């Protein structure tokens, strides 16, 4: 699926954040030289097509005190990982849940679930709930704690280089 140039322009204009004014979409529209109605209609269409996941207030969890970030990883039977991954992903305390490839022998885990907490014990207290969902389909697990954030900017579309638009 590709975005047309106007969609790209709009995503770039809104991803860094909407201005905190009474009519933020009008402010974006004036910057782009569009109408407010077009901004809203295109954003709605992008959301419907799931090109934009959400328009939201994005909290900084780390600054809010959620300083423990445990990347919980599991080695789950390939035949059951899709079904079980969906169940793990629906647990309220899991913020991201993905299936990724194993790279043997270095990396035996194919299911990733991110759990945030105010401290490590809060994250570890959640682990049995995930393991209970996975049951005997899980052959091993680990929790990788973050020690340091070296960079965190979120997915951003960059300004086009020449006529090429670039996503970074």
């Amino acid at each position: 699926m590709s975005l047309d140039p106007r969609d790209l322009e709009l995503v770039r204009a809104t991803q860094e954040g909407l201005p905190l004014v009474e009519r933020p979409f009008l402010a974006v529209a004036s910057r782009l030289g569009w109408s407010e109605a077009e901004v809203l209609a295109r954003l709605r269409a992008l959301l419907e097509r799931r090109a934009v996941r959400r328009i939201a207030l994005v909290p900084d969890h780390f600054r809010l005190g959620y300083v423990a970030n445990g990347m919980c990883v599991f080695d789950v039977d390939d035949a059951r990982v899709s079904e079980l991954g969906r169940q793990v992903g629906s647990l309220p305390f899991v913020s991201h849940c993905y299936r990724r490839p194993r790279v043997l022998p270095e990396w035996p885990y194919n299911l990733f679930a991110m759990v945030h907490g105010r401290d490590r014990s809060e994250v570890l207290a959640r682990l049995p709930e995930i393991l209970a969902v996975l049951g005997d389909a899980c052959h091993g697990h680990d929790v990788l704690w973050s020690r340091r954030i070296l960079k965190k900017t979120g997915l951003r579309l960059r300004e086009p280089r020449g006529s090429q638009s670039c996503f970074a």
Partner: protein
Amino acid sequence: MTEATLSDYEKRLLDDFQKEFPLHPRPFAVIAERLGVDEDTVLDLLCELQERGLISRVGAVVEPHRVGYSTLAAMRVPQEMLEAVGRFVASHPEVNHCYEREHGLNLWFVVAASSRRKVAEVLADIEYRTGLPVLDLPLEEAFRLDLGFPLTWE
């Protein structure tokens, strides 16, 4: 790390609008109505939260792989090289998350670019310049995509 102190309105703002921001000409008035306050109060709160760094932005969150391509990569970096390699990896504009983690594979990062080929080039560049192998762990299936999570308050 000092605990952020927040008022009840601030907590509700942060909790309720992580997922769904009203697509309405006056979105902050809609939020205000739901919280039972006025529009100015909401705007003031948001400005304050942003100044304190508690919200990073109010904006669009783009879907990975719908526009461009991304992957999660991991490296096993000897401790004495970690600082330099971490800085080098993070300096790539295509790298948008980079974490040091407590594991043999101690450097984890997300690479996102306009195409799969461009992502592969970045990984190859990092391998070549550091002399260390990079594990490429692209998303194969998403069960939950960063929808925020319920914040609990003490």
